[in-house]
């Protein structure tokens, strides 16, 4: 609820700015609809912060990638830009609700330096700052093995974009900022929605561009809090016999560090991507890493592509049964191989189809959601995910 109040405040400020200025408004939007089938009836395939998806809950899920976004951009005076973006998509409670994904004022101090105040999107990955715009992504959805390393994408704060070097096709840009973030999530299929709060976030992303190449290196750190009653209960149970262990495992106020490295080679014929990310958290969540590589070959309006991805989690172990349960609950190690094809249906519409093979490691309990009692964690099956989606921009 607090999230919605904060969103409403941001929208209100933006509306006041809009109506108070005689700015010519540029309205744009994006939309996507998909259908997803998952072969495993004992769990749901999800991504982002969704709590249910295809598989156990829906034979074919039409809400996993389906969204509608509207954006307003304007410039009331020279050197000042206002941006507002709202996205209607499924949330952690399985409802289609609107959320504010951009609400900021950007000040172009000079051509090489701009300062943005307000809400921006996570700039650390190659595609994270416009991941909702499925049309502009090479895949139907970003590889969860890397983009799921963090669940924090709405950054509220101040961000500076600095062009350190500009010479011909060569450019070096630093994006750095201070922010905080609130993210809703659910670990029980949407019945209870909890909040992950990140504070004192500091981040820096260095993007080196040369001709058809882009190399991006990002670092972020901050503190995490959550208000999850189940975790609180578990910590209480651990503290009764080992208070030091409970302190070590508790999430509240713990530091996290995040690193990402990405390379993109993009020409009219070839697309090659490589991204790796690592998140280290001083709590029971442990250390999670992910990596993928994608190759796509453009053949006119078609682009077949292949993605190989892997994620793994390192957690501590404990003799305390409740502590060990918590450690086990966050294990997420999985390998996937995706074959996809993108087709430019019209000048503003793209159809993408993907067949994905997924193989969770033994004991991986974070790979999917809504596990049934029949799910075999000791020997998970190989699963198939089929997706087809259409996306547009306007």
């Amino acid at each position, binding site marked *: 609820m607090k999230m919605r109040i904060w969103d409403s405040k941001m929208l209100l400020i933006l509306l006041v700015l809009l109506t108070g200025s005689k700015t010519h408004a540029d309205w744009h939007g994006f939309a996507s609809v998909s259908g997803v089938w998952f072969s495993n009836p004992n769990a749901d395939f999800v991504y982002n912060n969704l709590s249910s998806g295809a598989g156990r809950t829906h034979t074919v899920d039409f809400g996993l990638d389906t969204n509608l976004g509207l954006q307003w951009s304007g410039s009331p005076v020279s050197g000042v*830009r206002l941006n507002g973006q709202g996205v209607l998509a499924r949330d952690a409670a399985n409802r289609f609700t609107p959320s504010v994904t951009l609400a900021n004022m950007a000040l172009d101090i000079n051509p090489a330096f701009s300062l943005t105040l307000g809400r921006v999107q996570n700039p650390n990955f190659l595609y994270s700052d416009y991941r909702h715009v499925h049309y502009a992504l090479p895949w139907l959805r970003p590889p969860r093995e890397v983009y799921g390393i963090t669940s924090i994408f709405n950054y509220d704060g101040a961000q500076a974009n600095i062009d350190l070097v500009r010479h011909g096709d060569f*450019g070096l840009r630093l994006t750095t900022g201070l922010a905080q973030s609130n993210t809703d999530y659910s670990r029980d299929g949407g019945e209870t929605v909890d909040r992950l709060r990140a504070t004192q976030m500091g981040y820096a992303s260095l993007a080196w561009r040369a001709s058809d190449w882009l190399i991006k290196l990002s670092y972020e750190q901050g503190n995490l809090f959550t208000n999850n009653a189940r975790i609180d209960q578990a910590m209480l149970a651990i503290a009764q016999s080992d208070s030091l262990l409970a302190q070590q495992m508790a999430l509240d106020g713990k530091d996290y560090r995040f690193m990402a490295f990405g390379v993109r080679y993009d020409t009219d014929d070839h697309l090659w991507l490589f991204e790796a990310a690592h998140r280290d958290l001083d709590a029971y969540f442990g250390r999670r890493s992910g990596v993928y590589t994608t190759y796509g070959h453009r053949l006119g309006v078609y682009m077949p592509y292949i993605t190989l991805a892997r994620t793994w989690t390192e957690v501590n172990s404990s003799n305390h049964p409740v502590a060990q349960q918590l450690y086990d609950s966050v294990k997420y190690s999985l390998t996937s191989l995706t074959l996809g094809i993108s087709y430019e249906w019209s000048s503003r519409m793209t159809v993408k189809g993907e067949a994905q093979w997924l193989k969770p490691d033994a004991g991986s309990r974070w790979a999917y959601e809504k596990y049934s009692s029949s799910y075999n964690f000791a020997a998970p099956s190989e699963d198939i995910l089929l997706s087809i989606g259409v996306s547009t921009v306007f």
Partner: protein
Amino acid sequence: MRRLSFGLVLLFLTGLPWWASANWQIVTHRDSEITPLQLSDVRLLFLEGLVQGKSPQLIDLSDEVLRGQFYESVLGISQNRWRAHWAKRVFTGSRQLPKQFALDYITHYLDTNPNAVAYLPNEIQIPETLKVIYCSPHQGATMEGSGCAPTLSVHSRLVKKPFVNGVD
């Protein structure tokens, strides 16, 4: 009709992509501080919005076909990649987007907005209040006086009538 047939035959014989012979000029106000550009400057200008330490107001053609020809032939990127690039710029709010105008309005707009820069087909006559800062190098186009030297490309003969009627 004979000229059109000759053009098509020539196009077939040379094996050139149909857009490869499009010729474009980059135009701004005569009072603008921007000096003649290299191709790399043009790419930086239209893909990143920066040139010679400045961030001028960019003008795009509202005609999607013509716009696509410019991006393909001068900047060397396909329409698909350009659209993805456009979507990124729009939906991250990272830069001011180019304004879009019809071909026959652009010279008037440039005339009254010294900070604006636009691309136009070489066939468009440039008034003395404007200056050309780049000519696309295909078919040996060169800057000459207040405009690029006209080139009799196959493409320009094929497309001239529909697009410049009522302008020149």
